[in-house]
């Protein structure tokens, strides 16, 4: 796929946000908050940074792989997969409906192109991505493995088992990222279970850690990803702390955990869509 310009990427972000809100609204269920917050990162990965093949093959030889550990941002992933040609954007209409390939949380059972493992139960994706990265090394495949996690997810113990393992085994073809929005279902992370200094924690575990302070600024995200790529192949796994704002792009949704798992009603949808330009055509 041809790499997009910054302006094009911004237009795609606007459309992807529309997709997410319309999908969640249509079934009155889903997770709009983090989906809106992570839009720039996903668009940067799939439309610019990753070498990937939308003619989907589970083994993914000779391409970069992406794993989503915080599976509840599925609407965002589905929109980006559809918009990059993994399946028709028409199929976004089936999100969370009966007999759909677009399950509430991503799954492989229905054979949705682009998804390589089920996720939703938190804490598991980092381990899976590390395993896939080690297989790439065994296969002498020089491509990278990316994985996305939530910040609340860092409260799961398995994440730290995986963090310790990746450094010990020098898994340096891996770029992990944490959606550092400071929110989780029951409130701000610092009130629910304070993560304290995640940067220092991952460094102490033996990772290279990059802070992307403006995770909703596409240029900053691209710079962060380029920096992360430059650190691969040097004996350490790489972590991006991606500072995002939950609900970014819609004024009444931004910066609160309130929209973690709540769908907008008709009026709210209209208000939100009014703030997001239709750039590629709604599905």
């Amino acid at each position, binding site marked *: 796929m041809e790499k997009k310009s910054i302006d094009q990427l911004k237009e795609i972000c606007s459309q992807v946000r529309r997709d997410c809100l319309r999908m969640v609204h249509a079934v009155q269920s889903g997770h709009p908050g983090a989906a809106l917050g992570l839009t720039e990162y996903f668009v940067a990965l799939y439309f610019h940074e990753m070498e990937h093949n939308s003619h989907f093959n*589970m*083994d*993914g*030889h000779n391409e970069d*792989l992406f*794993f989503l550990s915080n599976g509840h941002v599925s609407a965002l992933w589905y929109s980006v997969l559809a918009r990059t040609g993994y399946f028709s954007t028409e199929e976004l209409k089936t999100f969370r409906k009966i007999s759909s390939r677009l399950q509430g949380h991503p*799954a*492989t*059972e229905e054979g949705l192109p682009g998804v*390589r*493992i*089920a*996720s*939703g*139960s938190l*804490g*598991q*994706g*980092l*381990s*899976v*991505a*590390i*395993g*896939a*990265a*080690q*297989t*790439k090394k*065994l*296969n002498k*495949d020089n491509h990278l493995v990316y994985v996305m996690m939530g910040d609340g997810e860092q409260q799961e*113990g*398995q994440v730290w*088992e*995986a963090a*310790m*393992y990746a450094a*010990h*085994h020098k898994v340096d073809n891996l770029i992990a990222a944490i959606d550092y929005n400071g929110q989780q279902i029951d409130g701000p992370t610092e009130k629910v279970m304070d993560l304290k200094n995640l940067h220092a924690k991952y460094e102490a575990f033996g990772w290279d850690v990059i802070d992307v302070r403006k995770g909703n600024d596409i240029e900053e995200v691209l710079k962060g990803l380029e920096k992360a790529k430059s650190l691969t192949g040097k004996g350490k796994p790489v972590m991006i702390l991606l500072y995002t704002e939950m609900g970014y792009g819609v004024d009444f949704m931004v910066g609160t955990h309130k929209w973690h798992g709540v769908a907008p009603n008709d009026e709210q949808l209209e208000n939100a869509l009014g703030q997001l330009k239709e750039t590629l055509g709604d599905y």
Partner: protein
Amino acid sequence: MEKTLDLKFTYTEKKDTRSGFGDGLLEAGRNNPNVVGLCADLIGSLKMGAFQKEFPDRFFQTGIAEANMIGLAAGMTIGGKIPFTGTFANFSTGRVYDQIRQSIAYSEKNVKICASHAGLTLGEDGATHQILEDVGMMKMLPNMTVIVPCDYNQTKAATLALVDHHGPAYLRFGRPSWPIFTPADQKFEIGKAIKMIEGKDVSIFATGHLVWEAVVAEAMLREEGISAEVINIHTIKPLDEAAILESVGKTRCAVSAEEHQVNGGLGDSIAQVLAKNMPSPLEYIGVNDSFGESGTPTQLLEKYGLNAENIVKAAKKAISRK
């Protein structure tokens, strides 16, 4: 007691079933370059040392972190590897149930979960390690194949068979030295029960270490003029329903024997088959809703009612209920 009996199967050597796994894994590694091994700090106990030594690049020490090990294995399948994970049965199942459920079973990943030290015969380490619920947990998972071989040779054959079987699988074996009574060159067909001894009065369906106890029980029953059929159910899921129905169709009653809780074990699976197709008396040999304790394997099998003498009693009771 078994020395004086006229046994239909005999043995010249005893060995632990986990060694069958270790030796099978080494051979599998030589046969197929995609076979990889993972172990959570129990290389010696799981007998994975020879594989590690011969294939250091295809072996992954995970440390005491079983949840991560399961996720790693799931990920390694993406790109074509066939991971065999090794730890004790307790840490292979209950400790990591959700990881197996989401990342392996639901995601249909080609991971072989290999579990040693299962059941009471773990012995002196006691109940914290003697898992008796693992078969139940694993057989409930859609897409999961569950295999419980009975001796060293069968464990080795099962390990090799799993390389060519695509999909999630649970392989359960144990710690103690145990008679080797099945042939070294056996053909192991996943999902196909093996009729060990032909009989007409009662069917004994046994799995794992208790297949040997069933062989001993058959000789004891024969001395009393009772003809027992002994069937080795090495694959609990998918269950060989045809073999069960064929045997009970003839004997009209059955005993299940396993080193596992009665709740959720092989006996439950057999009961379903019989209830749906051929309601018949069924007696269960297994642990009855309790935890184990420290002791020798022989003492524990006796105390919890899992040895040949108890199979004999259960067989007579099943016959009396016809």
